[in-house]
C-alpha cells in the first residue's frame, strides 16, 4: 500500500510508529467499525400497547371473519395479519415516506391486528398478495428507475387487478398515472393504475403547507400536509380528485384539485408525512383492507394537537 502518485508533500514514514499495526487483526481495507449499522428498512415493531376496548357495532374483531359486502369484493385478509407492502424504499423514500408505513403499522397494531411489513427493494419482486401498498416520493432519476422497474415487474399492477389497496405520494402518485416527464425531459410511461398524466410545471415549484377538503364520499376530515413538486398532474375521466385545496397548489392545474383516486387506488402530493398529519387516512386504508366500516378507537391525542397546530399555521402563515 502506498500513497497515490502526485502527493505534493508527504510526512516522513520512516519515523517509527509508536504502535505497530498488526495486519493479522484487520487490514484497513477490511475495516469493520464496532458500531453495527442500523437494520435497513426493518425498524423494530412498535410495542402493542392497545388494550382491546368494547367493540362497537360494525367494528372489526380480530377473532371473527370480517363482514364482506362493502366494496363488492371479499376481505383479502386470510388471517389477522395485515400485509403492508412498502414499495421501493431504496428509490422512493426521500421525504420521510417511511412515516406512512410506520403510522399504518402502528394504527393497525393498536387495533389488535398483526402486521407483516414487507419492504421491497427495487431489485426484488413486488409481491402480489399484499393488502396495502405504499409508495413514496423521490427525486427525478430514482423516479424514472422506479417506473422502469415497476413496469417490468408487473407485481403491483397484478395486485391492483386483485383489488389491493394502493396509496402513493408525489413521485409515486405520478408513477401510478399514465405518464410523467422524467429526469431526461422525456415522457415516461407510468403504470396506468390512475387515469392521470403529469407534465412539468412552467411556474415556480409548489412548496409549502397545504390544507384541503377530501372528497366527501371518503368521509375523511380536513387534510393537512406539505407539498414539494414541480409536476402538474391532470385528471382524466376515470378518477376523482382526492381532495380540493383551500391553501396550497395540489395537482398544480389551477383548478384546486389535489391528488386522485378510484376504487382502492389513491394518489396525493402531500408529504408531512400525510399519515402522520392525517391518521384518518391510515385508518381508511386499514378499514378498506378489512372491509369494515369502523375500527375500534385508537388514541389520537398527539395527532389531533399536531393537526390543530398545522391547520392554524397554514391558514395564517407566520
Amino acid at each position, binding site marked *: *500500500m502506498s*500513497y*497515490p502518485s*502526485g502527493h*505534493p*508533500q*508527504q*510526512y516522513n*514514514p520512516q*519515523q517509527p*510508529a*509508536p*504502535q*505497530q*499495526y498488526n*495486519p493479522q487483526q484487520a*487490514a*484497513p*481495507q477490511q*475495516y*469493520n*467499525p*464496532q*458500531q453495527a*449499522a*442500523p437494520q435497513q428498512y426493518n425498524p*423494530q415493531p*412498535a*410495542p402493542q*400497547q392497545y388494550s382491546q376496548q368494547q367493540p362497537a357495532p360494525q367494528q372489526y374483531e380480530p377473532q371473527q371473519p370480517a363482514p364482506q359486502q362493502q366494496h363488492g369484493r371479499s376481505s383479502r385478509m386470510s388471517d389477522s395479519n395485515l400485509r403492508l407492502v412498502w414499495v421501493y424504499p*431504496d*428509490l422512493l*423514500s426521500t*421525504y*420521510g*415516506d*417511511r*412515516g406512512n408505513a*410506520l403510522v399504518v403499522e*402502528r394504527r393497525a397494531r393498536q387495533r389488535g391486528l398483526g402486521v407483516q411489513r414487507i419492504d421491497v427493494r*427495487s*431489485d426484488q419482486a413486488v409481491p402480489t398478495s399484499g393488502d396495502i401498498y405504499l409508495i413514496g416520493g423521490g*427525486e*427525478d*432519476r*430514482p423516479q424514472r*428507475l422506479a417506473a422502469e422497474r415497476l413496469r417490468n415487474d408487473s407485481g403491483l399492477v397484478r395486485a391492483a387487478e386483485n383489488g389491493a389497496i394502493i396509496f402513493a405520494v408525489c413521485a409515486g402518485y405520478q408513477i401510478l398515472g399514465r405518464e410523467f416527464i422524467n429526469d431526461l425531459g422525456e415522457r415516461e410511461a407510468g403504470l396506468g393504475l390512475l387515469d392521470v398524466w403529469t407534465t412539468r410545471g412552467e411556474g415556480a*415549484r409548489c*412548496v*409549502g403547507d397545504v390544507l384541503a377538503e377530501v372528497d366527501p364520499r371518503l368521509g375523511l376530515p380536513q387534510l393537512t400536509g*406539505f407539498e*414539494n413538486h*414541480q409536476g402538474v398532474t391532470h385528471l382524466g375521466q376515470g378518477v376523482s380528485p382526492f381532495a380540493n385545496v383551500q391553501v396550497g397548489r395540489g395537482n398544480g392545474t389551477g383548478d384546486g384539485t389535489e391528488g386522485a383516486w378510484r376504487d382502492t387506488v389513491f394518489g396525493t402530493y402531500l*408529504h*408531512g408525512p400525510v399519515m*402522520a398529519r392525517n391518521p384518518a387516512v391510515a385508518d381508511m386504508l386499514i378499514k378498506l383492507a378489512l372491509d369494515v366500516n369502523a375500527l375500534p378507537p385508537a388514541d389520537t391525542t*398527539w*395527532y389531533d394537537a*399536531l393537526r390543530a*397546530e398545522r391547520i392554524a399555521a397554514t391558514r395564517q402563515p407566520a
Partner: protein
Amino acid sequence: MPGTDSEATAAREASLPTRAKLAVTAGRVAAALSQKAGRGSGSVIGGKVALKLDPDLLATLAEHLDVVLVSATNGKTTTTRLIAEALRAAGPVVSNALGANMPAGITAALAGGSDAKFGVIEVDEKYLAGVARDTRPKAIALLNLSRDQLDRAAETRMMAEKWREGLKDTDAVIIANADDPLVTWAASSCRKVVWVAAGQAWKEDAWSCPSCGGVMQRPGDDWFCQDCGFRRPQPHWALQGTHVIDPQRGAWPIQLQLPGRANLANATSSAAVAAVFGVAPQVALQRMQSVTAVAGRYDVVSYQGRDVRLLLAKNPAGWLETFSLIDGPPAPVILSVNAMDADGTDTSWLWDVDYERLSGHPIFVMGQRKLDLAVRLEVAGLQFQVVDSLDQAVQMAPPGRIEAIANYTAFQQLRKAVAN
C-alpha cells in the same frame, strides 16, 4: 503576542493590489457598522461588501496561502477546526472557524488577516466548486453527503454530480471518504485522490448507484454496483476502532475531547489531510486533542445546577451519529426541533430518524415543531413529555447529565438560553 497579528496583517494588506485593499477596507467598515447595529459579528456582511467591490478578492486573498477546503453534509465545521489545529504544527493558520462557509463569509475570514501560511476553509456544499476555482486549494476534504433540508429540492445525488463536475480538473489532492458511495462518485474523476475509510452509519441516500442507477450491494462495510462495477476503492487511510491506520499501516491512537464515532472519522480524515502538508499523524492527532467544543457543539454547560450537554443534529445522518454518542439510559434526553428557513420548513425528515433508539431514556420534547416530534415518538411507542421551555424540561428531568439534542436554529436557541 497580540501585536504581531495586526502588524503582519498591515504588512500583508500593504502588498495587496489597490482594488483588493479598498475592498478589504470597505468590508471592514461594513462589518463594524453591522456589528454596531447589533447584527452579530458582521463578518458576512463585510465579506459581501468587499466581494462586490472586488469579485476577485477571494482569489487574491488565497493567493499566498496553502489552502485546504473542507466540505460535507455533516462534520465540516468540526473537521475544519481539527485540520486547523493539526496544521498549526507547520505554520500559522487562518480559518473560518465559526462556520460562515459561503463565499462572503470565507472572504471575510481570510481578509480578517493574519500572517498565515495555511488557509483552512469550511465550504458549504453548494459553493464548493466555485470556491475551489477561486482559491486554488492544495487539498480538498470530502467527508460525506446525505439528505438535508428537504424543501430545498437539492437532490443529494445531484450534489455529488455537481462536485464531480466542478472538481474534475482540480490540481488539489482530494481526501475522500471511501465508505460514502456519493463522495466516492464525486471524487473518482479527480487525478489525485487519497481514500479514507472513515465509515458512514447512514446509508439511505446511496442505495442507488450514482453512476448507473443500479441497486447497490452493501455486504458488511463493502459496497459495489453489480451493474456497472462502480465499487468502494481501496482505502489508503482507515479509522479502525479508536485508531487511525496510515498508509504504512501504522496505527495511531485518537484521543479526542470530542465524543462520538463521527468525530473519530473526522480526526482520521484530518490526519490524512495533515499528511498532505507534511504533518505526521502522531503530531496531527496530538494537536487535535486540544479541540473541545466547536461553536458550542458538544459543550457541557451548567444550567440551573444541572449538567447539560448541547448536541447539534441537523439531518437524519446527524441524528443517527448523535444517538450513538449519548449516555445510555436512564440519562435524560431533551429533543428540540424547529422548522425555520435555516432548518428547512418540511419536517418529514423526522420519520427517517430512528427515534426508537431512545427507548429507555426519559425524553422531553420542545421547540417550534414539538408536536411533529410528539407524533413521531408516539408512533415509535416511546414515553415522552412535551414541554414549553428548556427550564421546564430541566426541572422535570430525573438526575443525571442531560443530553440536549437540537436541530440548527433550535440549537442556537438552546445556547442562548443557557448563556442567560
